[in-house]
């Protein structure tokens, strides 16, 4: 339990799950809590340390997820994910990944995506779901039923509003503004507009002290794509010079365009290897110009190497015998920034006899191992996932089917190979202890070749359901 000072009183600021089960709530006096639960473990709150930890977490988020990140004290982090979520496979995937990583490191986290900072703040703290993605344009309806405490108002104002009978944001939004402003001041209207997305709220992004960053302020706001491209080129050259002095190469670049209406547009690009080549970096950034909305004009641009790694100068040796393999990392970067790094991969063998487990995705530029799949049995070029059930007529236990029906078409088996027995992997899951699949390669009258299997060994019902499945199509 955390105890801190609120004016003259010592109150409970936070209570863990065990304390909450004992009936302790945040906001109750510390003395009352101690009276309720004898032997209570009390920790003094340290707001300064909390703020420092929050900043550290924000920096981690900045490196990992998005260019515009700021701490939202006391307990939140706000991220402008525009222009960065595609690198993580979309908003929903990014949120899930974020919460999973935080929970794995022992932080209870809730996350929400919405149109405005205010709405996301409200939904993350007061919505029913731990992870919530609101489609663009529907934030107003999403927050309407949340309590007014979600509006980031001072606690006294919230309790005063409750006294007046306001419970939900929808109640407040439906009221005429003038009497409310007269009674509570401009703060209420401002917070309401921010949550409803009627008023912009710039995020002041956090910046680590050692960051390599170049900035350019324009005398006149710029908006044309060509102009932006030209200045990107100039910024990249300056950044590359700065990187060269420190012997680094950029792994992740952030371009933040500050607009005249004090909003920021951000672009993030990543590379698979540290890069200091101005041409390549310019190309990557210029690919993203169409995602920048210049609005009424951009007045300043900032380019930062958020993640930089040592880049050693390498001497190239000319081989007399054969040409070296051409470098494809530039292509990988371009494609990864276009479709997302997760969608670009190589497939490597895994030592498993179960076909769907025999393949694993690895990074496109992972070191080459020369390993390939073992076994002489032919494998189908298309693997259905999941296997499709078929009706088959076969002699048990180990004869291939005489005929089978797949997708409503009956096929007579002309010749077949098999069975190839695949045993379950008991070290992965208990039910697989005695599970068996018998694979057959069959060819029908038309010459089409299929990979079918029977779940079970054909004798013992415990080894599988004895139903037939089609798992793959041979070329």
């Amino acid at each position, binding site marked *: 339990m955390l105890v801190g000072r609120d004016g003259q009183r010592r109150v409970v600021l936070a209570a863990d799950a065990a304390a909450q089960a004992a009936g302790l709530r945040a906001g109750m006096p510390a003395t009352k809590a101690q009276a309720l639960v004898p032997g209570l473990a009390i920790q003094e709150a340290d707001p300064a340390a909390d703020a420092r930890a929050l900043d550290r977490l924000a920096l981690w988020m900045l490196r990992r997820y998005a260019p515009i990140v700021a701490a939202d004290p006391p307990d939140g982090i706000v991220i402008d994910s525009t222009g960065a979520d595609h690198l993580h496979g979309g908003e929903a995937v990014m949120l899930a990944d974020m919460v999973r990583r935080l929970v794995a490191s022992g932080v209870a986290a809730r996350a929400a995506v919405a149109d405005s900072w205010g709405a996301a703040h409200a939904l993350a703290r007061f919505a029913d779901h731990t992870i919530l993605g609101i489609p663009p344009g529907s934030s107003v309806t999403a927050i309407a039923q949340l309590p007014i405490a979600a509006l980031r108002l001072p606690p006294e104002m919230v309790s005063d509003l409750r006294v007046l009978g306001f419970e939900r944001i929808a109640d407040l939004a439906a009221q005429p503004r003038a009497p409310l402003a007269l009674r509570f001041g401009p703060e209420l209207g401002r917070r309401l507009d921010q949550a409803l997305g009627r008023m912009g709220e710039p995020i002041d992004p956090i910046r680590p002290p050692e960051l390599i960053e170049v900035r350019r302020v324009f005398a006149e706001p710029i908006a044309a794509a060509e102009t932006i491209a030209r200045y990107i080129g100039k910024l990249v050259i300056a950044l590359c010079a700065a990187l060269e002095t420190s012997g680094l190469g950029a792994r992740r670049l952030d371009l933040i365009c500050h607009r005249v209406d004090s909003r920021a547009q951000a672009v993030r690009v990543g590379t698979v290897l540290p890069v200091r080549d101005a041409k390549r970096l310019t190309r990557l950034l210029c690919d993203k110009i169409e995602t920048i909305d210049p609005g009424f004009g951009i007045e300043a641009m900032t380019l930062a190497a958020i993640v930089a790694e040592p880049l050693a100068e390498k001497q190239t040796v000319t081989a007399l015998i054969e040409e070296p*393999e*051409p*470098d*494809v990392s*530039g*292509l*990988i970067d*371009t*494609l990864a920034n*276009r*479709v997302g790094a997760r*969608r*670009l*991969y*190589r*497939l*490597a*063998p895994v030592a498993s006899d179960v*076909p769907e487990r*025999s*393949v694993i995705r690895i990074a*496109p530029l992972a070191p*080459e*191992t*020369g*390993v*390939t*799949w073992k076994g002489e049995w*032919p*494998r*189908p*070029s*298309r*693997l*259905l*996932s999941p296997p499709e059930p078929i009706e088959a007529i076969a002699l048990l236990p180990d004869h291939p089917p005489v005929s089978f029906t797949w997708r409503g078409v009956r096929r007579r088996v*002309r*010749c*077949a*190979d098999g069975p190839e027995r695949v045993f379950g992997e008991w070290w992965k899951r208990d039910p697989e202890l005695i599970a068996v699949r018998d694979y057959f*390669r*069959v*060819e029908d*009258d*038309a*010459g*089409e*070749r299929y990979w079918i299997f029977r779940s079970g060994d054909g004798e013992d019902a415990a080894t599988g359901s004895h139903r037939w499945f089609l798992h*793959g*199509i*041979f*070329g």
Partner: protein
Amino acid sequence: MSKSTTLSAVQKLRERIAHLERRAGRQHAALPFGIPGVDSRLPGGGLARGALHEVAGGGNGAIDGAAAALFAAGIAARTRGKVLWCITRPDLFAPALAQAGLSPDRVIYLEAGDDRTVLTCFEEGLRHGGLGAVVAEIARLSMTASRRLQLAAEGSGAIGLAVRRWRRQTETVDFGQPTAAMTRWRISVLPSRPLPVPGVGRACWLVELIRCRAGESADFELEACDETGHLRLPSDLAHGPGAKEVGHCIASA
């Protein structure tokens, strides 16, 4: 006019056209199949590098594209360098590609959400020049898109292989539409040759060269790719009387 003068005139005309088409005068050596009957049908004695080629499956293969993918893998396996494989549906089984000679170290897969992304990434891959071959599974390929791909491939010398694959049988009429591709292939499965023992023999394909720029269409009965990516004549044809005339010429039939 005698036959030899006609031939030399045709030869000169071909050279002029080739000179006009390749603006930069960049010449890429063709990639032979290693089967004389097939290579003699293709201009340049093999599959042209720096060009776009289309492959589709016949019958049900137009939907699953299983044989077409292996045919493309066999060609890609015989090139040098990495191979970019753009897919929209993640049902490609990598061990089969390895058995067609395409080692897992060489293939970089790109999972694109839609045909448009596939086309842009396909073009990007062809333009780069460091790849041996770029394979993309696409349904619709317009004249404009294929022209762009063809030009990108011409500039870099990579082989572009468009594996045409549709969702429904009715959509396959799209394969009749003209594109700027250098060759167009249709791969259909054939019953394998009977073995003296129970079992399935080596897969057989009916490989149809439907369209070939500066060449005639033909069809061949071949055995599927071996572990080095080479196709082979069926054993009973290879040493038989018809070995010389394996390609059945559609144009003259």
